């Protein structure tokens, strides 16, 4: 079946290109690691902090800051894919005429993107493993308690942020504007979604805005199974809703040149 063979060929191609672009490997593996190490250095790893309360909420969700940021950093890299890497890549593919070439040869937008997302998911899982090992060695952090739950959260997050990335690439024409807009969105989300300051310390208004956006849901969707709190059905459902709400119009309106 040509849809399947096209998907496999596209995925294989994405893996090849990824291997040949050392920077992207470094970014995906090193960026969340750096984020986790820096934030853990700032907020420490004291058991006493686990039960601190602010605004009526557990600041660190009942775990130490190092544990908190280990799981949260996984979500950050997924957001970076959707808000930065994917739209910039697609816009530069468009600018250089690569999308035109694919379009003329029956390649569908969904095939192109699913190849990129498959690669992204594999690198997220690899990045998560590295992150968990480093956190264990450096901070005696906990292993993910429910590995499957973490993987499912990564899948849902990849779908949601992949769809958002595709929508951004549809609306934004050039890679330069994709960089500008992507960075703005990325840092705004990063600051209000519990990935930088914990959400408990945010003013109510920012906490509410963050609660509408997908990154805060991805953070809890990853953290809950990681800390052994069980799967977070609501968060997974919100991520799935974002995937559909952004993905359907993006596939419909996708521009090849």
């Amino acid at each position, binding site marked *: 079946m*040509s849809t399947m063979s096209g998907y496999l060929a*596209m995925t294989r191609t994405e893996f090849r*290109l990824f291997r040949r672009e050392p920077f992207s490997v470094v970014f995906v593996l090193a960026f969340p690691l750096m984020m986790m190490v820096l934030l853990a250095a700032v907020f420490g790893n004291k058991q006493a902090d686990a039960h601190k309360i602010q605004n009526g909420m557990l600041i660190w969700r009942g775990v130490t800051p190092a544990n908190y940021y280990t799981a949260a950093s996984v979500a950050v890299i997924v957001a970076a894919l959707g808000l930065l890497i994917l739209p910039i890549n697609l816009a530069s*593919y468009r600018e250089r005429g690569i999308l035109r*070439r694919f379009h*003329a*040869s*029956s390649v569908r937008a969904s095939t192109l993107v699913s190849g990129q997302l498959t690669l992204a998911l594999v690198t997220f899982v690899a990045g998560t493993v590295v992150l968990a090992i480093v956190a264990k060695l450096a901070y005696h952090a906990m292993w993910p308690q429910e590995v499957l739950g973490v993987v499912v959260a990564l899948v849902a997050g990849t779908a949601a942020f992949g769809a958002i990335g595709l929508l951004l690439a549809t609306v934004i024409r050039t890679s330069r504007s994709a960089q500008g807009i992507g960075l703005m969105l990325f840092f705004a989300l990063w600051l209000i979604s519990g990935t930088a300051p914990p959400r408990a310390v945010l003013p109510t208004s920012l906490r509410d805005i963050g609660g509408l956006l997908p990154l805060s849901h991805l953070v809890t969707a990853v953290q809950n199974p990681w800390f052994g709190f069980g799967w977070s059905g609501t968060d997974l459902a919100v991520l799935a809703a974002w995937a559909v709400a952004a993905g359907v119009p993006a596939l419909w309106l996708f521009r090849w040149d």
Partner: protein
Amino acid sequence: MSLATIASGVFSDLVGVITVSHLRKAYRHVVAVDDLSFDVEAGEIFGIVGPNGAGKTTTVECLQGLRHPDGGTIQVLGLDPTSQAAELRQRIGSQLQDSALPGRLRVAESIELFAAFAHHPVDCNELLARWRLEDLRAQAFDTLSGGQRQRLFIALAFVNSPELVFLDELTQGLDPQARRSTWQLIREIRQGGTTVVLVTHFMDEAEQLCDRVAVVDGGKVVALDTPQGLIDRLGLPSVVRFTTTEPDLGWLEKLDVVESMARHGEAVEIRGIGPVLALVASELVAHGIVPLDLRVERPTVEDAFLALTGGDIRE
């Protein structure tokens, strides 16, 4: 092969491979193609020539379903490129202007990638050999020269065993040898029954390769004929040149075919329509003049093109 495919194949034989009537396409307020019509028959090499901005590329992009026309009707292989684009793209090959591949993708890998999307892919090694890409197999797209990229794009146009190929500026960036071998390969491909639509601004290419040529200017077809037909219909003069020390050649001007004669020292230039060379030569011989450098310049497609499009090349 499904019944529908057979039926549409038979249908396309009846109506021609491509039928364009009253095609219109505007970008915002700029009308790129305006009331453009032509037909392409099965098995021919059909040329579309015209100055830059004449609407050539827009036209072939509409034919390939890459752009949606604002008006008029198009049928390609019996299909509507707008509503049946997916089906159409499996049966046509495209070499596009201004396209690229991911920089680190290698030549053989890119052929394999595109073959994976074809319902009837050709053998990748055969394709690499035919377009002399074997030595470049492991080379990344970024490291290819302009001519090598061009050869790769032409090869990609044939990866799905197309019935019809669109070649937009086929030999752009190729050196003279590569141009000639590319022309030969295109002739061979036509021998195999593939119809070719060639967009070019090289008039020698149109003259060498095309069975018929549509001259497009200002978004319209201003002439459509065989290359020779284009020249003949315009009645463009031949120019006969030679040198002689003979001072008085007034008797040559009395020949019916001669329209004008000019002299610059020993150099003589005679313009005329019809068998100018033969008549001038026999008259010269009769007067005992046998110049060694007697030659004729016949009008070319380029002359016809310049006459048809007003002669100004718009960059």
